């Protein structure tokens, strides 16, 4: 990932910052310019909760080149405790043990290394919630 793009995305990738429509209250993640519900253009900042449930997932067995070492791995969609849905890799979990409905927690992880020379990209992943 280009450093400039990664840098722009720190607020949501690093800190789970979402936008909340000042008119109808809809929480959008990542933040956007226009509310998909009411068309309003003003948003406040909210931080997403770090727990939720997995609602869907797909196991990647043939991975893109930068992720081949991690295959097989799962990409899942989780619904957080405030109803917001987001997509991330499911880490620290054998792909055979992943189940729809399992409790997850969001953890800060390394996403990409860009070879031995590039910038390191960090962000959020899901891990099984066990406490």
């Amino acid at each position, binding site marked *: 990932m280009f450093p400039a793009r990664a840098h722009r995305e720190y607020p949501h990738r690093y*800190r789970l910052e979402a936008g909340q429509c000042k008119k109808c209250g809809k929480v959008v993640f990542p933040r956007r310019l226009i509310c998909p519900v009411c068309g309003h253009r003003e948003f406040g900042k909210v931080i997403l909760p770090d727990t939720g449930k997995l609602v869907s997932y797909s196991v990647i067995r043939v991975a893109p080149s930068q992720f081949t070492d991690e295959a097989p791995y799962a990409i899942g969609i989780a619904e957080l405790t405030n109803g917001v849905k987001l997509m991330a890799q499911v880490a*620290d979990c054998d792909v055979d043990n992943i189940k729809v409905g399992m409790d997850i927690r969001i*953890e*800060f*992880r*390394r*996403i990409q290394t860009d070879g031995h020379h590039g910038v*390191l990209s960090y962000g959020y992943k899901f891990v099984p919630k*066990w*406490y």
Partner: protein
Amino acid sequence: MVGIVGYGAHIPRHRIKVEEIAKVWGADAPSYKKGLMLTQKSVPSPDTDTITLSVTAARNALLRAGKVNPVEIGAIYIGSESHPYAVKPSGTVVAEAIGATPEIHCADFEFACKAGSEAMFVCLGLVKSGYVKYALAIGADTSQGAPGDALEYSASAGAAAFIMGSDNLLAEAVDTYAYMTDTPDFWRREYQFYPQHGGRFTGEPAYFKHVTGCAEGMMKKVGMKPSDFNYVVFHQPNGKFPMRVGKMLGFKKEQIEPGWLTPRLGNTYSGSSPIGLTATLDIAKPGDMILMVSYGSGAGSDGFVWKVTDRINEVRDKAVRTTKLLDENITFVDYGTYAKFRHKIRKND
């Protein structure tokens, strides 16, 4: 009065047993287990490094700190010998991830296994001087021993974070002390992947001399003796050294045990005595006195005397306890998985 406002730890969930490593190198597992007094060590997954461990530990520290707004943290120092970048401080990413930028002073610290306690020492000083309201000190490592080397059985991963401040303390820093000499017991030259160590030279003139020197100097400075402390936390390169040094100094096993994690965690290097302190705070009562002595090869020790306050009872369960991270929800891996996780296998780029 300055001290700890919030503390938190993080330990990766994977473990490898001494037997599994010994099997690969044809070594005798029982003698390693007995000699090092440890049975297993933590293994970081490939997407886990000093930065990610630090972020999770810092978030746990913020949970226990309660009303501290991250933007009020005026300094962040991360001590590690496994910073992911050679040039670019780990603290830049961690401060950004917890929302503490941009008005914050940042540097990475290095001093073998005592880099984390160095960060604690400096943070206390900055808060005491009034330069910053809060300061975040982290000791974190994903340390590596060369394959087949004795260090491979113990070098592990983990992190502890402490938010230092002057009000709302859960433990007061009564005093600090430092003891340091030029002792070449362990080192790594630039561009070298694995560290070198001086074999038996690492014991008496290095670990034992500095830890006893620091503990005795610290106790003399505050006018206390071993029996005045409820708990003591030493740096733990293996399970044996902290027990032996405790006995040399006149501490009892019961004072050492709550923070003695290496037998089932391994040596988390910069995280070692700091994580031991988090486990000790997890079970401490108001009024308890804790002595902490770190050790970093090269060589030196930092000493701290902590006095636990009433606030410990309110905050200890605001975040996950260290022994829970250590003993529950763990997965054992085989040597092949470990070698892949730790990038010990050379591939074509």
